[in-house]
C-alpha cells in the first residue's frame, strides 16, 4: 500500500496513473461524477466550434449579410489572395522569431535560476513568473510607452551609441516580436525549469571531476537533458504567439495585421463573419496540428528522458 501511494504521489504532476482497484464498485459512478463537466464541454465547447466551422462554409455579401449556402468559397479566397498569404506568413514569421528568442534567453535564465542560492532564487523566480499573473494589456501598454510615447528605448540605445537614428518600434514587426517575447518568455523558463528539476547537480560535478571543461559539461551533460524542456516550451510559446491577439493589436496597430487581428476585424469591423470564421478555423487546425504533432515527435525522440 505504501509503495503504491508513493508512486501515485510522484506521478501526480504529469498525469493520473491508473488507480488501484476499489473494494466497492459501482460502474456508473465515474460517469455520473464527470457528467456535469461533460455536459458543459459538449454544449459550450463542441457545439460552438462546430457552428463556427459551419459558419465558415456560408457566404457573405455586403447587402444581404450572411447567406445560408454551403460552399468552400471562403477557403478558396484565402488560398488565392496574396493579402491573406502575407498576413499568415507574417503571423508564422513573428511566432517563429518569438519562439527562437524565448528559447535563446529563457533556457539559460532557467539554468542560472536553478544555480542561485536560496533567498535570491525565490525572489528572482517571483520576478520571472510574476508577469504571467499581470494582465497582458498592462504589460503591452508598458511596451507601447517604452517604444512610442516616451521613446525611452530609442533614447537609451542612442545614448549607448548603439544606433545613430531612432528605430521605429511601434506598428512594426520588430516591436511586436519584442513585446510578445516579453509576454511569453516566462512559459519557456517554466518549461525548462521543470525539466531541470530532474537533473541531478552531482552529475555535473562528476563530469567536472573526470576532467571535462565547463563548456563540455554544458554541451554533453546539461543541454541533452534540458532539450525536451526547451522543445515543449517552444511548442507552448509558438502556439500562443501564433494566436496572440492583444499584443499585436496594440503594438502592431491596424496596419500590421496578424491572423488573430485579421479575424477580429472581419468579425467586428467588416462584419464578414463567414470569412472571420474561416480564419479562425484555419488558426485552430494549425494550432492543433502543431501542438499534437510536435508533442508526438518530442515524446518519441526523447522517450528515455520522459520515463
Amino acid at each position: 500500500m505504501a509503495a503504491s501511494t508513493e508512486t501515485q504521489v510522484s506521478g501526480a504532476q504529469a498525469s493520473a496513473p491508473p488507480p488501484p482497484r476499489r473494494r466497492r464498485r459501482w460502474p456508473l459512478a465515474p460517469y455520473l461524477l464527470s457528467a456535469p463537466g461533460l455536459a458543459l464541454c459538449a454544449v459550450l465547447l463542441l457545439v460552438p466550434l462546430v457552428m463556427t466551422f459551419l459558419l465558415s462554409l456560408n457566404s457573405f455579401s455586403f447587402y444581404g449579410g450572411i447567406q445560408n449556402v454551403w460552399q468552400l468559397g471562403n477557403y478558396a479566397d484565402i488560398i488565392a489572395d496574396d493579402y491573406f498569404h502575407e498576413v499568415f506568413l507574417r503571423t508564422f514569421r513573428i511566432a517563429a522569431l518569438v519562439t527562437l528568442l524565448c528559447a535563446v534567453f529563457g533556457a539559460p535564465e532557467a539554468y542560472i535560476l536553478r544555480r542561485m542560492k536560496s533567498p535570491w532564487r525565490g525572489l528572482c523566480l517571483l520576478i520571472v513568473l510574476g508577469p504571467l499573473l499581470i494582465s497582458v494589456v498592462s504589460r503591452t501598454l508598458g511596451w507601447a510607452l517604452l517604444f512610442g510615447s516616451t521613446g525611452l528605448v530609442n533614447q537609451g540605445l542612442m545614448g549607448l551609441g548603439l544606433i545613430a537614428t531612432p528605430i521605429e518600434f511601434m506598428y512594426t514587426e520588430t516591436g511586436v516580436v519584442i513585446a510578445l517575447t516579453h509576454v511569453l518568455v516566462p512559459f519557456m523558463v517554466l518549461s525548462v525549469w521543470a525539466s531541470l528539476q530532474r537533473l541531478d547537480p552531482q552529475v555535473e560535478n562528476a563530469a567536472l571531476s573526470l576532467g571535462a571543461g565547463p563548456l563540455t559539461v554544458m554541451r554533453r551533460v546539461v543541454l541533452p537533458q534540458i532539450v525536451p524542456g526547451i522543445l515543449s516550451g517552444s511548442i507552448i510559446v509558438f502556439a500562443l504567439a501564433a494566436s496572440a491577439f492583444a499584443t499585436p493589436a496594440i503594438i502592431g496597430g491596424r496596419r500590421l495585421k496578424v491572423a488573430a487581428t485579421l479575424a477580429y476585424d472581419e468579425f467586428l469591423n467588416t462584419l464578414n463573419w463567414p470569412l472571420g470564421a474561416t480564419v479562425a478555423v484555419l488558426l485552430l487546425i494549425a494550432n492543433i496540428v502543431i501542438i499534437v504533432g510536435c508533442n508526438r515527435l518530442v515524446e518519441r525522440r526523447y522517450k528515455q528522458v520522459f520515463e
Partner: protein
Amino acid sequence: MNRNGPIALIFHCLFLGFLLAPILIVCAVAFTSQGYLSLPTEGLSLRWFRAIGDNPEFIRAFKDSLLLGAVSSTLAILVAVPAALAIARHQFFGREAIQALFLSPLMVPHIVLGIAFLRFFTMIGLGGTFAGLVLSHVIIILPFALRLILAASTGMDRAVENAAASLGASSWTCFRRVTLPLILPGVASGWVLAFINSFDEVTMTVFIASPETTTLPVRLFLYIQDNIDPLVAAVSAVLIFLTVAAMLVLDRVYGLERLLVGKGRD
C-alpha cells in the same frame, strides 16, 4: 560549477531588467503631474489616480471583473471536483478521452473561442449578457482548476478514507469530513488560478462583452486602441499593485512556483 559566473549574473540582471522595464514604466508614467504621457520628472502627482474616480466605467468594469472571476471560478470548481475524483480514483471506459476533453480548451486559441462563443451566444440569445460571460469563462478556466485538483486527489492517501468507511461513515460523510479536507489545498489553489485566468482574460472576452457588461482588461484594451494617456497608465498601475499584492500573499500561503509549474499546456 554550481555557482553562476560573472557573465551569467550580468545576463541574469539584463533579463530581469527586460522583464521589469515595461511594468515599471507603466507605474512611473501613472505618477506624472503633466496632462500628457511623460515620466514624472517634475515631481510625483496622484492626479491621474484621482481621475480614475471621474471615469465610473473603469470602476464598474473592475467590479464586473471581480464578480465574473469569483462566480466562474466557483462554478468551475463545482464541476472540476467530482470530475477530478472520478478520473483520479476510477478505472473506467473512456477515462483518458474524458480527461483530454476537459483539458482541451487549452488547445483552442482564445481568439477562436471568442468567435465561436459570439456566434453561439447570438443564436441562443445570450449575446452580451453576464451569464454568457460566466459560461465562457468556466470553459477556459476549467482545465486549470481540474489539473490542480487532480494532482491533489491523485496524491491522496486512500487508507484514511477506508478507515472512515470501515468505522461506519456514509459516502457523503466520508467525502465531506475526510476527502474534501484532504484535497482542500488543491481546490483552493485551483480556485485562485482559475480566478486569475478569468480576471486576466481579454482575447475571448472582447468578442462577447457588451458595452453594458464588460471586464476591466477589455475596457482597457478598447480604450488603448483609441488613445493612450496617463489615465490608462494609472488604471494599469492600480491593477499591477493589486496583482503584486495578491502574488506576495499567494507565494507566502501556497508557493508561486507550485501554483505555476502546472500552468501552461502539456
